């Protein structure tokens, strides 16, 4: 009933505006074209500006060793919540992996980014059975694996990839660094409710 009411009110209001046809938006806003090395450079600059740390790897097989070193350097338990494709890598037996949703005790998650956006230095994460949403928000330390080849120029390139892939993921999380707040005296404080650190493992091609 409210639905009909709201639509009736909207249509009555619009009828009064008849003849003032809305202007059709012009060509979409486009950012300047970037080649692969420009995309990489811009992504790195922006990601670091957003307080991400970045470590470059040559191959995805190096991820487990890099994660182990990170956990040890930060004195973290050798337990991770992990995206399923990454959990299948060859891990040292001391590190336990859980591919389910993050729980209160989860301190570190290792995720696989769907894309990196050069324009804003943002990670694009797509949820699904292999990549829980909670891994992005619950842990204190978020390690994100990003393939260099997945760095695109702009958000619009990510949308194009999603359309090509068919269904829209349940959640698309664009992440620009660790969580923060300016709510106490406008002083930016890193580590609000989400991760206190975002560490990107950038895997070259």
């Amino acid at each position, binding site marked *: 009933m*409210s*639905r009909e009411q*709201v*639509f009736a*009110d*909207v249509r009555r*209001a*619009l*009828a*009064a*505006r008849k003849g*003032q046809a*809305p*202007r059709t*938006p012009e060509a979409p*806003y486009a950012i*300047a074209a970037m080649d692969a090395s420009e995309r990489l450079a811009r992504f790195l600059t*922006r990601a670091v*500006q*957003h307080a991400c740390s970045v470590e470059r790897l040559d191959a995805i097989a190096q991820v487990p060793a890099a994660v182990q070193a990170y956990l040890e350097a930060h004195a973290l338990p050798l337990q991770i919540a992990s995206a399923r494709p990454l959990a299948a890598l060859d891990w040292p037996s001391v590190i336990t992996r859980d*591919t389910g*949703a993050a729980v209160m005790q989860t301190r570190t998650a290792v995720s696989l980014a769907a894309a990196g956006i050069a324009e*804003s230095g*943002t990670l694009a994460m797509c*949820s*699904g*059975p292999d990549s*829980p*949403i*909670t891994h*992005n928000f619950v842990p204190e330390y978020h390690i994100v694996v990003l393939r260099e080849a997945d760095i695109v120029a*702009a*958000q*619009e390139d990510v*949308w194009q990839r*999603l359309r090509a892939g068919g269904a*829209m*993921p*349940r*959640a*698309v*999380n*664009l992440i*620009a*660094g660790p*969580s*923060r*707040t*300016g*709510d*106490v*005296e*406008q*002083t930016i*404080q890193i*580590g*609000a*409710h*989400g*991760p206190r650190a975002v560490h990107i493992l950038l895997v070259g091609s």
Partner: protein
Amino acid sequence: MSAPGGSFESRAALALKDPSLQKALGNFKPLFVAKRASAIAELPDFEALRERAAQIKNAVLGELDVWLERYASAVEAAGGKVHFASDAAEAREIILGICRDANAKTICKGKSMVSEEIALNPALEAEGYEVVETDLGEYIIQLAQEAPSHIIAPAIHKTREQVADLFEAHHPGRPREESVAGLVNEARHVLRDKFFEADVGITGGNFLIAETGSSVIVTNEGNGDLSQTLARVHIVTSGIERVLPTLDDLSVFLRILARSATGQDTECYTTISTGPRRAGDPDGPQEYHVVLVDNGRSKMLGGKFHDMLRCIRCGACMNHCPVYSAIGGHAYGWVYPGPMGAILTPLFNGMAEHYDLPNACTLNGRCQSVCPVKIPLTELIRTLRSEQVKAGLMPARQRTLLAAWGWVARHPDLYHALERFGTRLLRARAGRAGRIKSLPGAGAWTQVRDLPAPQGDTFIEQWQAQRGKS
């Protein structure tokens, strides 16, 4: 969550004399203005983006029924449910119904101005739900039992010491924290349990995407995401004007929103949610509801205040408003302060009840010069004033004085004589300093500043002298 009582005038007078509010306002203003300016400057063409954003909004508003239908069908195709509410009471009833059906006890909330607009928290609390605001600023004012004083930074009026006092009083058994880092960490620990306990998560919806049936939230803290992901039921509250056609349109708005709001190039988290948890998903809510609120918006559609519906609630207008930065948000008396509130509050809640709001504006135009969707705010404020006059709402004293001025202005000889007399009188009163320290009938002005005395001859005298020369 009460807004302060009294008239605008009395609230503004109190605000001007409140030392901690003045300290807080002094901290905030230079920061927001400078950060926005540098975030805008690094864009190749902000003007083109503004223009495009305004065009997209105009196009959607012109066919709002079509886009709402497409959006609702897409949400339903993704397994979500869309509810429409004509007014605040209906919106509250719908949300209460969802919470009852979910057998909820604890409700976590991300920041939502629509939920403030429909006064949701008192309604939920009256039915016995534990309602937890999880945005740090909203959490602080929830503890203080106050309304937000800024739409982006709700607790902007609180100093660090006041936050420390509130936390000490409400978090028994914890040592008093004084530093920003300590206070943020304390809130993180206290709210963590609530996120995991919550049965229902309520968030706003900055944008709604017709192409995919998605709702979009933009945050820095990650609180909205924890609220909507860990609860069994996610409820999105948004206004009917928030729909956008496509994800590409969304990108236009994401480029301007953070820059205009906080001066960041992007917020930390932008989340696009589509429907409830799917088969095989390890997390996410089991139910996904969108409550779309009209509450006066369709009355603005197609009318004199149509342009205001483009508003994306970034807060740039209040950050650049000299009146807002002198008196803060509470003086405006409702959830939307600053220039946006000066327009929305009288439209939603009555022009007579909020007569002062559009009149407490210098029409300096800074708000509209920074508005990312090019809303002609000063023009709308002027239109509101003229509507108020047409409705006979202007106070008698003001009406009489204006009528007298109008009569004199139609008699040029008298007008010029009075002008010559007046300028000389003012100059005599000012004395050698050239400044008037007090003036009968203008005490409110001279109480806080001097009135500069007129210099030299009147304009007409000079005009006539110049003409004589050439």
